[in-house]
């Protein structure tokens, strides 16, 4: 397994890129430790697949280098990079048995039979495939097929990195749940460097120790799941992570305090926005908005209360601005006028989308 360095990568699909907008990837620089679990998270078109293809060698970057343990592999084709990949759709040989599918990557590299056998049985055990080793892959359910794909990625112990590209997108929720925890368990056991690419925040946050959030070809934040939830560096991260995402409310700052629709809102630290910021906003997650009883708070109108099972999502409007609240099952909430209160330690000011320096 390897430490992976992406050094000043840029990539454009155009022959003669001029400005930043011509780049699908705009200067990416990051380092991934050996044995870590990482996720690349972002919406379609954010550049995460481009980045994945550069790491796997399917794509040569316009600029920059890819290093595995300090070794420059930028010019090497995929088959010389020693990586394993698992894709959205299972890639398996239908006519082969489960055993032969798992053994294939090893036999292909001339690994001796006894070693193949030991390794296949070990991986099959971890994935709970041992009962079906003699079954032809064609007869399996989609989640078992995807397990085999994962097993084929895991069976070699000499790979630099295992990359997962939206591996659970086509899997039903309850099976997705099982596979997700299986994968997590596998990482905890084998400690291989794993990179997981997805648009699904739940998958990224539950799998990875560190998540790279991308938007429009740029990294907007790198952090642990807790950091991304607790302290989004950008309103995009606040919105993209969390369901519903962070409330982003237009605000004014004067006399060292933030005001939303004329109401003073206490924030984590006294806001001191940079000179010339064109857009000031308050960011507060629905988890940290409550219904105020008594004085103070933001007057609003509750327009809808949706049952989300263990919680309720309350949609309120203050003027034209929508504010979501997440309440537990027991708190009373009904459509009509209400006063909202924001937990000050979790309310922050963003200038032009970015968390204000002073607040970091």
């Amino acid at each position: 397994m390897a430490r992976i360095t992406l050094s000043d990568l840029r990539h454009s699909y155009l022959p003669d890129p001029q400005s930043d907008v011509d780049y699908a990837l705009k200067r990416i620089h990051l380092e991934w430790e050996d044995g870590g679990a990482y996720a690349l998270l972002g919406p379609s078109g954010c550049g995460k697949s481009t980045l994945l293809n550069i790491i796997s060698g399917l794509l040569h970057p316009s600029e920059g280098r890819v290093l595995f343990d300090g070794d420059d592999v930028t010019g090497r084709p995929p088959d010389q990079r020693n990586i394993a990949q698992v894709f959205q759709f299972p890639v398996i040989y239908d006519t082969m048995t489960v055993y032969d599918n798992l053994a294939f990557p090893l036999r292909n590299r001339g690994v001796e039979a006894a070693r193949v056998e030991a390794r296949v049985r070990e991986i099959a055990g971890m994935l709970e495939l041992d009962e079906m080793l003699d079954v032809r892959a064609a007869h399996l359910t989609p989640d078992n097929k995807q397990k085999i794909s994962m097993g084929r990625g895991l069976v070699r112990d000499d790979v630099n990195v295992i990359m997962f590209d939206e591996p659970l997108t086509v899997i039903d929720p309850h099976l997705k749940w099982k596979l997700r925890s299986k994968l997590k368990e596998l990482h905890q056991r084998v400690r291989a460097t794993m990179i997981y690419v997805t648009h699904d925040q739940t998958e990224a946050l539950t799998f990875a120790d560190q998540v790279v959030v991308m938007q429009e070809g740029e990294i907007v934040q790198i952090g642990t799941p807790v950091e991304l939830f607790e302290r989004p560096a950008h309103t995009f991260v606040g919105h993209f992570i969390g369901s519903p995402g962070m409330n982003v409310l237009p605000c004014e700052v004067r006399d060292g305090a933030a005001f939303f629709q004329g109401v003073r809102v206490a924030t984590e630290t006294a806001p001191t926005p940079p000179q010339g910021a064109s857009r000031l906003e308050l960011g507060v997650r629905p988890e940290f908005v409550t219904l105020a009883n008594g004085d103070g708070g933001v007057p609003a109108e509750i327009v809808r209360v949706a049952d989300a099972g263990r919680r309720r999502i309350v949609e309120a409007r203050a003027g034209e601005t929508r504010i979501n609240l997440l309440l537990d099952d027991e708190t009373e909430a009904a459509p009509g006028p209400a006063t909202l209160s924001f937990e000050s330690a979790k309310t922050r000011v963003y200038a032009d989308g970015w968390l204000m320096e002073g607040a970091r």
Partner: protein
Amino acid sequence: MSIELREVTKRVGAEIHLYQTSLELAPTGFNVLLGATSAGKTTLISLLAGLRSPTSGEIWFNGEDVTDVPTQKRNVSLVHQFFVNYPHMSVYENIASPLRVAGMDGAELKRRVEEAADILRLGPFLRRKPGELSGGQQQRTALARAIVKESDLVLLDEPLANLDYKLREELRDELPRLFADRGATVVYATSEPSEALLLGGHTATVSEGRMTQFGRTSDLYRAPSDIETARVFSDPPINAAPVIKAEGEIRLGDSARWPAVGAIADAPDGEYMVGVRPHYIAPVASDAPGVAVNGEVKITELSGSESIAHFEFEGGVWVSQSDGVHPYRVGERHEFRIDTAGCLYFGADGARIAA
């Protein structure tokens, strides 16, 4: 419109795709079909659409038997998981197509297309081809086509499954509003319990070709009629284990016992299954009501806002889901607390023990 399935079955060769099902859909709000892939959702939708005929039974629309009425004459709209648009036509012409088929043109057609495009925020893209749109915009185009037609019955077969997570959240939020005032009966198939909850309305849970229950969505979630419905309607999956009721208490293996209260108190002594959704299992020994259990943590998943732990207990793996960040360590024993007020009990036949 009133829509009814009367003792409908569907067999293909020797395979049963749908066991005998009788169902009267709610005329307003969403009718969600919730179940795993190949549970029978798409079979139900194809039967309602008239794309397939039942093996036996009847389908009634507004008091009329339409079992043998072809799909073109049923006034239904269908939106699939895969965005189906005409690639060579503009967005405008795509939306207009059902109206043109119906022989409409001129100012009325223009008005209706623009109205639908407006509702789905496609106004700026009317002259583009579907291939030039994002996935979300393509699916909005398909939805606009379903709306413009003013069908009596709108069938949405996992329409958001192929969209990005955030886009799905956005459209899921819009959909109930979109159909709220249109007077159409809406059927929406999904495999995601959270989606069913948020869409509200009514839900039918479907499992292996059988409809297990139909009723108000929140009732099905909170008071499932049987264990299969509870399983289908839980994400993360519900914890389930055999328990014994004796001497006024519930016994789970050797280590956990708690007083039998509620409907189970009146049930005879004997063997039952208990179902506990993961959020009723808290990670710490608190003074919250319930019973303390402990087990070795096998897997942890911390999402930033909530913590999930899989732990071994009484020969099975249990899952706890809680708000906040809890420092579990894999391989160590932790104490958890089951909120017994959140326990559901099921008899040997799978039926929930209810008052």
